[in-house]
């Protein structure tokens, strides 16, 4: 197990090597592996500042719009980790992160969705005015649907989101709006419907 060394400069250099590797290699598999490593390193608070300096926050955000679902999953995971850090949180918000993350709620990969929900919760904790968009009705409705999901992990996270990030009235309003749309989940109704 890697001891938490106080050699900040070593860490920085090592992380930089990883980032350079990611940029330089053309091999997709190699990129995936580096990205996975970076995402995992982002879990350790001692690395967060270095990763921030290396603009890895932006790197992760970039990954969210990639076609490769692994890139998206790992990028989302990395953001989930970094978004625990207030300064990274601010960066993510400034870079239009909310939109990118909420788009990930539509992913087919459960891990991606789970990371996205957690990230939104972290972002919602920010005092920034931008974070108010996290509780837009569409997002709440999505969370309400998730809270009824078969997957326990999805259910739990969505429930915690609804309880901790939104007011009761907001949730109630979203519920009411949802009931009006129950007959056509995601499919537009004909005009005379």
């Amino acid at each position, binding site marked *: *197990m890697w001891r938490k*060394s*106080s*050699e*900040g*400069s070593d860490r920085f*250099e*090592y992380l*930089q090597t*990883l980032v*350079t*590797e990611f*940029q330089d290699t053309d091999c997709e598999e190699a990129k995936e*592996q580096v990205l996975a*490593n970076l*995402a995992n*390193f982002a*879990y*350790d608070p001692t690395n967060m*500042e270095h990763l921030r*300096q290396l603009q890895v926050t*932006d*790197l992760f*955000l*970039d990954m969210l719009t990639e076609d490769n679902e692994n890139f998206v999953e790992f990028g989302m995971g990395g953001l*989930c980790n970094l978004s*625990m*850090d207030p*300064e990274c949180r*601010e960066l993510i918000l*400034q*870079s*239009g992160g909310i939109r990118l993350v909420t788009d990930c709620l*539509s992913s087919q990969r459960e*891990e991606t*969705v*789970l990371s996205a929900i*957690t990230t939104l919760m*972290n972002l919602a904790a920010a005092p920034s*005015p931008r974070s108010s*968009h996290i509780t*837009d009705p*569409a*997002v709440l*409705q999505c*969370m309400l*649907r*998730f809270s009824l999901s078969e*997957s*326990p*992990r999805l259910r*739990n996270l969505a429930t915690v989101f609804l309880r901790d990030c939104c007011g009761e009235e907001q949730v109630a309003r979203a519920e009411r709006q949802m009931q009006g749309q*129950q*007959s*056509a*989940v*995601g*499919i537009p*109704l004909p005009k005379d*419907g």
Partner: protein
Amino acid sequence: MVQGVPAIGVMTELIQLCALYGAVEEYRPLDEYPAEDFTEVYLVKFQKLTSARAAKRRMDEKSFYGGVLHVCYVPEYESVEDTRSKLLDRRRYIMRAAQNKVREREQKETGNEEPTTSKTATTSEKIISRRDRMTNNDNRGENSNFSHYSGFPLLPLPPQEHPYYGHKTQHGTIPTEDKMGTLHNAIINTKQQPAQGLSFSQTSSDRESGTEQRLTPNPASVVRFVPRTTNLENRKRKKEDVPEDTHTDVSGKSEPLIGPKLPEPPKLDMEDESLNTTVSLIRSTMKQVGSVPDIKPVEKKIKPRRRI
């Protein structure tokens, strides 16, 4: 969750073993979980997350009464409260770590001009002063290398592979041990293929040794990570527009829904024309897919995944 427990009536012994790592809150056999012949599966819930982590680390892959235990987390068995406290604990831990860092820096600073909470340091000057502080924290002699910033080359020396670096093939799993939850451990499982083919496998071995002495005296701070510019530029442009335009369709009611549909069958109007559109689209896609020779599927490289 503990799998591979020999079905010879050793549940008590198993729980006693678990209790070595911390108080066990509850446990039960998981009859619904698939188990190999002559083995049982148990769910063990610890009072503390740290106990669970220790138990997993120590008991996984260990032999137990003739069988080999396989221990992994099962977040799907968490309650909502469990999930919530897990997240809250994690947040508190991060805050504490951040505060410690700030405190450390404040102790070392002597009327430093730079604010401790400065944002992303975009100038090498800032990075250098931060590194100054970092090196001040170290009492080890080998850091004398870092104190000279006068001239640094553009690139750091390639990481040296030292003989005393431990090399674990499962290096990727190490960070997962620190995880308080399982949100991200799935990533590593697919990456346990031999990494020899990849150039950075040597550098990753650095991590194993806590006493690594990197002979790279040149501060890498001047080498800036330049991200792919395309998305970055776009996003920087959008920074100003964020409050206005990006959320109109998020809040629209008839706009595409956020998130996937629920698993239960949606209540559909079967007469709806749009259904036919979808069906024809699917059919034509299937035709296309069917006509293409087997492409190397993504799953090919993912071996039967072991839950970690």
